[in-house]
């Protein structure tokens, strides 16, 4: 039933078949193998990232969920009972310092025995967030500031509270919202942090901000115009932002030195 249309189609196609410019079969096989290996490598990378991300999330969530049981977040008395590798306490941390301890002793002990009033956060200056390290799908930044009060003070026992600009522009009618944060303690491999305790004038005070950098954790959210909420209800601007995360933001407790 081959009509003229069909004959023309077949003739043209046959002519084309004789003039094809195809690769050698060995090249086809090699290309397929290369692609298969690449796919396996990509798959392995994805699995590694996912496992690292989940591990990191569990790591952070574990400490955030049970802060009172963890030595680094627990009250000073518990430090000696369950030391961890990255925050082994020195002998000076094993006892409760007396109220008459020197400022340095109190600093070591991290005690806030009421010898000094709680630090007025309005007195914090040069508040800056610095990008820190990243690993396991998580990133750690540090907010540092200088205490400008005239007398020693005790770091708040509460976790820092932050706001971010959630409306308006930085110049005109900015609106701020409370930044939803989790609480956690971070071990960055550096010297052990001294949480709580007394801060002297012009001393540097810090806290950590943890974010998630793993894309599979969720959509990335950016929080511009970060501010530190003070006890009076005011806010101190944090330079160096914004903060971005694909899995929420976690803050650590105040600390004022590392050892």
């Amino acid at each position, binding site marked *: *039933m081959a*009509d*003229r*249309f*069909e004959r*023309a*189609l*077949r*003739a*043209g*196609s*046959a*002519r*084309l*078949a*004789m*003039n*094809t*410019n*195809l*690769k050698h*079969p*060995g090249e*086809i*096989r090699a*290309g*397929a193998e290369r*692609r*298969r290996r690449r796919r396996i490598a990509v798959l392995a990378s994805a699995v590694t990232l996912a496992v690292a991300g989940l591990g990191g999330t569990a790591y952070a969530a574990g400490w955030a969920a049970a802060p009172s049981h963890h030595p680094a977040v627990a009250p000073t008395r518990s430090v000696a009972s369950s030391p961890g590798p990255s925050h082994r306490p020195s002998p000076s941390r094993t006892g409760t310092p007396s109220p008459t301890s020197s400022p340095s002793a109190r600093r070591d002990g991290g005690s806030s025995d009421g010898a000094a009033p709680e630090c007025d956060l309005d007195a914090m200056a040069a508040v800056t967030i610095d990008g820190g390290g990243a690993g396991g799908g998580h990133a750690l930044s540090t907010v540092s500031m200088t205490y400008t009060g005239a007398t020693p003070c005790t770091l708040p026992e509460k976790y820092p509270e932050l706001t971010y600009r959630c409306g308006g522009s930085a110049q005109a009618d900015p609106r701020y919202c409370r930044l939803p944060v989790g609480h956690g303690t971070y071990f960055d491999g550096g010297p052990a942090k001294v949480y709580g305790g007394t801060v002297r004038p012009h001393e540097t005070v810090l806290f950590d901000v943890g974010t998630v950098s793993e894309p599979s954790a969720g959509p990335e959210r950016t929080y511009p115009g970060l501010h530190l909420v003070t006890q009076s209800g005011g806010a101190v601007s944090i330079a160096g932002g914004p903060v971005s995360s694909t899995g929420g933001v976690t803050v650590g407790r105040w600390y004022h030195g590392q050892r």
Partner: protein
Amino acid sequence: MRDSRDFDSFYLGTAPRVTSHVHAMVGNRADAEDVTQEAYARAWQHWDKVARYDSPEAWVRTIAFRIAVSTWRKARNRLTAHRRHGVPEDLPGADPDYVAIVAALRRIAPDQRRAVVLYHLVGLSVPEIAAETGVAVGTVRARLTRGRQALAPHLSEFAAELTAGVSEVANHG
């Protein structure tokens, strides 16, 4: 264990033919060669299984057509450029009738084009096309009929045959 000699002889024996069939689908020789080679690369990845099929060539052709349709959809912008600047001359010395047929095939729906190519070029029967494309025999007949009708206005020289052939396809399949 995959037998590379087996695959190589299969490739060398069928690839030019499959390329020409794919060319009728996509209308461009370079694209047809790329799509065909991609289909054979996939065949090699699954050669243990594909080699045992009744017709490995049909498997490759099916994969190539799928890739072609997928590529076709992705390349809307490129097609727009083709329409604006004209289809590139990719087959020097080709029969003008064949060039016209391929150009006309590009203007009909992919499902109809596939049915027309399988029926008139590859030489499959309607039930075989139904099996290869995974649709009912009646659907294949409808696609062939509509495909030929759709081609007729673009191929004035073959309009009479295309219109007459509609009833033949419908009756015989």
